[in-house]
């Protein structure tokens, strides 16, 4: 894709201070929730529920 | 067309993992969906999207 096309499609020019990546924050917030819940699930359900586990010499 | 053909392709592409992982997710919650069931859900979902995508534009043109 040439930059000529990009220029055509660009509707406005945003600088650093005019741009708040709120969409990014929203997406990554969802990712955070998925990661945290999947981690808990994997550790406490899948791993600890997986039968005999190696324990220390007691 | 409501969205471009490439948009439709991407949408279907992203839908497939959602359907596949939805089945895994439901199983983790104790709800089991069979392969045929998953296929049915997938075909229905894709069908609905294709149907929606091919509806005529509601207002001014944005055709691709």
């Amino acid at each position, binding site marked *: 894709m040439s930059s000529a096309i990009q220029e055509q499609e660009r509707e406005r020019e945003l600088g*650093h201070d005019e741009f*708040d*990546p*709120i969409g*990014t*924050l929203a997406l*990554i*917030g969802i990712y*955070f929730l998925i*990661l*945290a819940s999947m*981690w*808990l699930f994997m*550790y406490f359900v899948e*791993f*600890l529920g*997986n*039968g*005999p*586990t*190696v*324990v*220390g*010499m*007691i | 067309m409501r969205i471009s053909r490439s948009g439709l392709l991407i949408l279907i592409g992203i839908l497939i993992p959602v359907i596949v992982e939805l089945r895994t997710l439901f199983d983790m919650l104790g709800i089991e969906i069979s392969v045929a069931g998953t296929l049915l859900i997938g075909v229905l979902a894709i069908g609905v999207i294709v149907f929606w995508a091919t509806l005529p534009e509601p207002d001014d043109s944005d055709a691709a």
Partner: protein
Amino acid sequence: MNIHRYEKLWLVAALVLIVGFIATITYGSVGLGIAMIDDEAETVNPEKLNEHEDFGEPGVKQVGENEYEVYVRAWQFGFDPGSVEAGLDPIEVPANSTVTFYITSEDVIHSFSVVGTNINTMAIPGEVSSVTVEFDEPGEYGILCAEYCGAGHHTMEGKIIVHPEDEYAINGTDVETGNDTTDETEA
């Protein structure tokens, strides 16, 4: 440096995640007593396992009231004891016991992975993996080698049988362990 406030927020969230992960693992180690395979066991000479005090006669040994030690030699392509397919005994222990496996390899790197459990260790020639496990329920487990060890790798498997406690006391000690001893003296 000019860092956007959302990015700072994410940085903090990411650090919380990372610290949370480490905390969970630490809880597993300290709170639940999940131990890692470590360097506690002595090394051995893989060429001279036959002369080794314990690995010379691999098998199950009772060392306490409910405590057992199992010495296992991994080789291309089986476990001794364990590989029933190769004509060897399965590993047999009673339920409600604490079992420490000592695993080494006589040739290449293998693994000793008990299917459907968290018992999983590498078997490295020269090194000994010591793995302590509590078997609460009777049952049968498959063992497989999960580390590529040569052209017959996919045939390398074994079996652990956890007997009900009362049956093991009769069959186990008298018959199974007895068998082991005679076998090994003959060999």
